[in-house]
């Protein structure tokens, strides 16, 4: 239990998927204009990550990993080179399913998320989490916690970015930097403050 808790804290703060590994920057920059949409997208990412990470774990360790197909009579088979395309397909499928469920049961949230919900499918944080999960040899339970933790860290970063962008709405930015350049500088400053956790081992 303590291990799982430290894995969760580790993936939220120390190895923040956004500000320590710089994954998922595109939607982080594009959707952080208002706090409400940022929170909505954050929850969607948490949900999708918590689901895709264990599903990809099952697929990888059940079908793709070296020797995983021993039960079907192919103990020497190594399909792990297929993991990229498989993971992306799984993510896209799950995002589609989530989209349909939200559309059916909460049209309001569906309308406010708009185009950003399908865009989660191409959010690199999602694929990155699945790949990290394989690389670090997590167990099944750990993959669930790792997915939830990465999603929470991503949501924390995008919500605080949205709050900062609300605060700097009246900032007098030099003309050439206005817009995304300015947001990238804020993101860099945020990443610098998140470096305070680098070096902590849990």
């Amino acid at each position, binding site marked *: 239990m303590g291990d799982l808790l430290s894995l969760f804290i580790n993936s939220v703060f120390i190895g923040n998927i956004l500000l320590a590994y710089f994954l998922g920057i595109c939607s982080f920059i594009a959707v952080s204009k208002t706090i409400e949409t940022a929170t909505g997208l954050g929850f969607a990412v948490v949900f999708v990550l918590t689901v895709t990470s264990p599903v990809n774990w099952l697929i990888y360790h059940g079908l793709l990993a070296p020797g995983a197909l021993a039960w079907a009579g192919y103990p020497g088979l190594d399909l792990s080179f297929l993991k990229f395309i498989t993971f992306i397909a799984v993510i896209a499928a799950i995002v589609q399913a989530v989209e349909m469920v939200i559309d059916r049961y909460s049209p309001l949230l569906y309308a406010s998320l708009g185009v950003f919900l399908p865009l989660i499918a191409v959010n690199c944080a999602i694929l990155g989490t699945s790949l990290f999960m394989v690389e670090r040899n997590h167990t099944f339970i750990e993959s669930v916690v790792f997915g939830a933790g990465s999603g929470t860290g991503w949501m924390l970063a995008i919500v605080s970015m949205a709050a900062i962008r609300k605060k700097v709405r009246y900032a007098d930015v030099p003309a050439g930097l206005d817009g995304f350049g300015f947001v990238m500088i804020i993101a860099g400053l945020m990443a610098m403050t998140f*470096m*305070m956790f680098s070096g902590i081992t849990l």
Partner: protein
Amino acid sequence: MNPIKKIFELLEYDFSDAGKFAKLGPLFDATKTFFFLPSPKNKMGPFIRDHLDLKRYMSFVIISLLPVLFFGMYNTGYQSGLARGETLEFWASFLSGAWVVMPIIIVSYGVGFFWEILFAAIRRHPISEGFLVTGLLFPLTLPPTIPLWQVALGISFGVVIGKEIFGGTGRNILNPALTARAFVFFSYPVTMSGNVWVAGADAVDGITGATALAVNAEGGTSLFSTLSDQGFSLSNLFFGFVPGSIGETSALCCLIGAVFLMVTRIGNYRIILGGIAGLIITAILFYFLPGTKGTWADAGPLYHLCAGGFLFGISFMATDPVSAPGTNPGRWIFGFLIGFLTVILRVANPAFAEGVMLAILFMNVFAPLLDHLVMKHRISKRIPNV
């Protein structure tokens, strides 16, 4: 007529929009308001209660920093004397310390004002007094042995990226002085962390040793006896006769500054008290954690309060009105979490012995979010308007 006023009136046309030095207009304005009150005054009501403008606000912070500054100069000289094996008397310590500290401050002010004036001239905004504080706070957080070019580089980053990109004082999200220090800290860790810095200990290179926060007792002895063996007794830490960054060593001087800021209501007492409460509660929790004997987890609240730069940071850095939250509950939470994170970093992070700088910057990032949550909570408490 006042001769200084005469000079200003003589030059006024040249620096106005039609004059030949129009670009340097902001510099002229800043110098003039330094000597004289701005002339446009309200002749009729409504009147404001108190003439607390940005200039007075910032000069009060400078006043509150004076004890820390003078003690820092004295202690720098005193420590370098100790390292050479001689105990200097008061004035000798002070002068030799000032000889080390003054160049750092001059470089910080000089380079910082260069950027400030450049941006003010090109972007046509007035020069802000905020830099007077930033330019003094930054050197006080540095070790006395820092190379001057690193001071120049750090303050450039702090002023340009930390503040001027955002459009100047009042619009930044992080404390510019801390941004500058964090930049130097991460870029040149060799000169900034790990060891104690004593200026001029040797003609060739300074002596090095562990800072108080990097000391760990070995072999079952208590942390306190190990600390006092190395000169870090609680009274030394409180009064500040220990090596360290220029301004941070004396808890007493920081407290004097903090009380001054709280009494004049320049620094918000909620942040300072919240921070001290957060530090004390977290330190007590760690104190009762088993199996930590001899490390800083075992140190207890008094040592955590007096060692390192916590009091300096919470009094002068965290109370920056721009980068701190604007709502009162937000300020309590902000301060409390700074104290909490400081202890967590000191105890759990072997990479950085001191955590208060990064804790404040980290909470600066979350200050707008705290404000948002507080306001949302308030709105939800309203009686529905139907």
